[in-house]
């Protein structure tokens, strides 16, 4: 199998039936079990591109892929025999604003399994424990699994959202600015978690923090106005970018 888990080929995307393109022909390959960061000034289409990867944009009526293709595990995800719902079980997502359901911690983590029809309590218990351990939350919440998730701190809620995502055992985890609503300590914990998750999952993370990208990611893609300007190893991007544009952005001269 190809070690390039996700392959974008000249992808174009529009929010308004193709009148204007928000993503303008992006080609990049994302390798397996690595962390890939998307950086760029806000409004350049990072979130949009990320949401293309699990077909979240299907929920918007007027959204449309204008050209190109996305292949995940070698399969074109827009092929007519692909079910977006099945795709999302393999490509999970963590959102910018942590959004646990107003249910118990346990029910939040079990959600993805319950909708797959799993009712067996032992299976659920086991999965909840594994996922919470996997997201380094178990020790903090193991005594209050039945209490509301909304009683947790912001950082804990975001890690709960990550636990909820890994409970369905996806191949890929997409994270859209997962730390932008968190304080520095909570951010450090989530970053630590990302580094651990990297062993098992392929992670694509959008971030507006250059330091975060350099800390957690293996590869970094820099976008500007819907176009991919540069994509390389994170070290290369930050120390020796080939594009003037990238260098300007990274050194904080614009954006």
């Amino acid at each position: 199998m190809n070690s390039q888990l996700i392959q974008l080929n000249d992808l174009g995307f529009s929010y308004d039936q193709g009148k204007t393109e928000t993503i303008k022909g992006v080609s990049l390959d994302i390798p397996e079990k690595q962390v890939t960061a998307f950086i760029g000034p806000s409004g350049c289409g990072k979130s949009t591109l990320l949401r293309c990867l699990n077909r979240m944009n299907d929920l918007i009526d007027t959204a449309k892929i204008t050209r190109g293709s996305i292949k995940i595990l070698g399969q074109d995800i827009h092929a007519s025999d692909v079910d977006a719902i099945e795709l999302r079980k393999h490509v999970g997502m963590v959102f910018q604003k942590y959004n646990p359901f107003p249910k118990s911690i346990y029910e939040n983590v079990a959600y993805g399994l319950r909708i797959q029809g799993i009712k067996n309590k032992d299976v659920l218990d086991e999965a909840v424990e594994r996922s919470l351990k996997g997201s380094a939350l178990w020790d903090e919440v193991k005594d209050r699994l039945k209490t509301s998730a909304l009683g947790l701190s912001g950082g804990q809620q975001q890690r709960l959202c990550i636990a909820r995502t890994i409970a369905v055992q996806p191949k890929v985890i997409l994270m859209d600015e997962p730390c932008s609503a968190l304080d520095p300590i909570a951010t450090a914990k989530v970053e630590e978690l990302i580094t651990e998750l990297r062993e098992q999952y392929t992670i694509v993370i959008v971030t507006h923090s250059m330091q975060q990208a350099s800390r957690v990611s293996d590869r970094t893609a820099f976008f500007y106005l819907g176009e991919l300007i540069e994509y390389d190893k994170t070290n290369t991007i930050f120390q020796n970018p080939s594009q003037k544009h990238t260098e300007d952005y990274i050194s904080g001269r614009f954006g």
Partner: protein
Amino acid sequence: MDNPFQKQLGWKQKKESIYLWVFRLCTYTIIAAALFIFSDIFIKGVPTFFKSEAPYVNTEFFTESPQILSVWHDQNGQEYSMSQKNYEQWVVAHPEKEIVDLHNLTASGGGILGPLVGTALLVFICMVIALFIGVSAAIYLSEYCGKGKLMSTIRLSILNLAGVPSIVFALFGLGVFCWLAPVITDVPKDSAAFFCRWFWTNSYLSFQGWGTSLLAGSCTLAIMVLPVIITACEESLRAVPKGFREASFALGATQWQTIRKSVLPFAVPGILTASVLGITRVAGETAPIMLTATMTEKSNLPWEQVEGPWSFLTQSVQALPFHIYTLAKFPESEHVKPMQYGSIAAFLILVMSFALLSVILRNRLRNKLKW
């Protein structure tokens, strides 16, 4: 030293207090009206619920249906007033008395049990129908359909429907539910618009209507509150944060699973508020039920003399608003007054307790489902 913040007593200050008083008086007008209505009705109506001798509760008022009230004098000029049934017994029991000056007053004797249960049934069945259709439609409008031109037309017509006077709904209900709705029967009526064999059985599917009936009345009321219910439910569905839906979809849930588990439960408090609105509107409507469901005189209660659910649903019922309407046409007299005010007070209490129930339920849920 001069006070730099010295109070000024000019025209500007006077204007301020005039504005304040205009607003204040307008508010007090509403409060005064409400106070007047409630105190007048309760002061004159609540005494009907009780009586001076044991068991102190006016059981007749709550356990009997409206009857003709007979009022008469005996030869000594003593006045009596009793429901017609009791009058007949009284005549037999007192052969020595002479009856002078006998009047019969419609619906002023007996009690309000018939209208009370009639209204409760109408409201209940109506809300079951309206909530089922209303919530489904609201789910479709807020979750499934897009934002196209067709949809804005549909929304506009729902809003327009909310403004249609109730007498128009009444006529619609009369035409459709009472005269045209389909029934399965062995003997179709001549008045049926159309009938044909019901598959291979000996029965017919006949479009002859449900007659003046509980079901026709409930359906008419349901159609009438649907716009209110749909609009309110749609709003409460939209108020559920988008993040819940996105998170659910991102975990591989289908549209219906998402609605079922992550949208609908959190919209329930709003839906209950909508039903309070609906109930208070429906319970008080007179025109629609007058044409489609009610009878002034009806000796048996809804559960008496019925064979099975269909005959239960297609019987006519009494209803409180219509009962009150009947009574209101009489000139106020000491004989009718207890019944008039008692009925109105009981009606207010019934509607208020329906509303209270939904409010309590909603608050309970809200505390449980806060986000």
